[in-house]
């Protein structure tokens, strides 16, 4: 913080600098902003820009998915059939519910209700944890069936579908098509894994917010950090809203 820059902002701030008190303005107003409104505009713009780079990041993976899905459609149908729609649907509901509790946490923070805010954050955290648990169970099944891309990848379910209850009754794929199911699972693990990583980071941030919220850090009028975290959490929700139909629901009729 350059003192000279602050003094240049005007007499009001200069007076505040005299005793380095926050005289006349809230303590959370940083010295390089003229007003609370200016600070809110600048920081919310920064948060949106960050999320838009995230759109481009996930967007790249969605484009790869789009092209390979068109290219190797039978393999993607067979791969998608290996995923459990019920578990995917439950996870969608869990994540949407956690988004809802997150909005309520922000509302409670703005209404300066500490207890309600902490309760909503704990619920959001718990729903996120259950989501990751379900995801972990799904991953475990993929490891057991050797559907994780790599050296031990197994084509059994696709060359001989009747050997696998999840694929029973479907048409066996020729070897060249069956091998492309590995590509489907590569994208499945890359996209859901990156999504899960975002959730784990989010839960870490949530733990930090909960820790600070107990002291009333977000229920005294300055709710920006909780709001921006909420935006991040909703963004992660949006990613899943697209992942679910694209990965789980290819040609399910």
């Amino acid at each position, binding site marked *: 913080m350059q003192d000279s820059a602050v003094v240049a902002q005007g007499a009001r701030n200069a007076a505040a600098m005299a005793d380095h008190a926050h005289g006349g303005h809230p303590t959370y107003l940083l010295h390089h902003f003229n007003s609370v409104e200016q600070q809110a*505009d600048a920081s919310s713009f920064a948060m949106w*820009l960050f999320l838009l780079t995230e759109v481009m990041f996930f967007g790249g993976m969605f484009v790869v998915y*789009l092209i390979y899905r068109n290219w190797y459609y039978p393999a993607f149908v067979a791969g998608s059939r290996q995923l459990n729609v019920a578990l995917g649907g439950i996870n969608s509901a869990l994540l*949407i519910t956690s988004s809802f509790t997150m909005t309520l946490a922000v509302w409670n923070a703005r209404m300066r209700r500490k207890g309600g805010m902490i309760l909503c954050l704990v619920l959001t955290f718990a729903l996120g944890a259950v989501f990751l648990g379900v995801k972990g169970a799904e991953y475990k099944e993929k490891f057991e069936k050797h559907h994780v891309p790599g050296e031990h990848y197994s084509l059994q379910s696709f060359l001989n579908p009747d050997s696998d209850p999840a694929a029973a009754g479907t048409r066996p794929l020729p070897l060249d098509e069956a091998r492309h199911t590995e590509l489907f699972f590569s994208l499945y693990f890359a996209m859901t894994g990156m999504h899960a990583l975002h959730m784990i980071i989010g839960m870490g941030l949530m733990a930090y917010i909960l820790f600070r919220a107990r002291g009333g850090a977000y229920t005294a009028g300055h709710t920006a950090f909780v709001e921006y975290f909420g935006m991040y959490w909703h963004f992660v929700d*949006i990613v899943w*809203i697209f992942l*679910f*139909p694209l990965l789980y629901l290819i040609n399910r*009729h």
Partner: protein
Amino acid sequence: MSEPREQAEHIVSPWIYAAVYLALLAGVAATIAASRMNLGILNPILALSIAFAQAALVTVYSMHLKWSTKLNKLSVGACAFIYCFLIAMVLLDYTSRAWGQW
């Protein structure tokens, strides 16, 4: 309606959040129901349309874009446009190549 000052002060009613929540859950149910029907080429289009509608609800209401500054709205719109543009360019290249003819 959307003065830059509004975001700092606007408190959204929890009932709006509840309505969005129910709409999102209905969207998941509709997505699964639609996947059970044989609609041919319309299957993925319908699934993605529902997903885009859900994403729009989250962005506009849960993420408070509706009450945000014009600069933020413009940025989100520009991102959506540029992303669609990039996908279109990639697909244009993809569909216009003479695959397997060299």
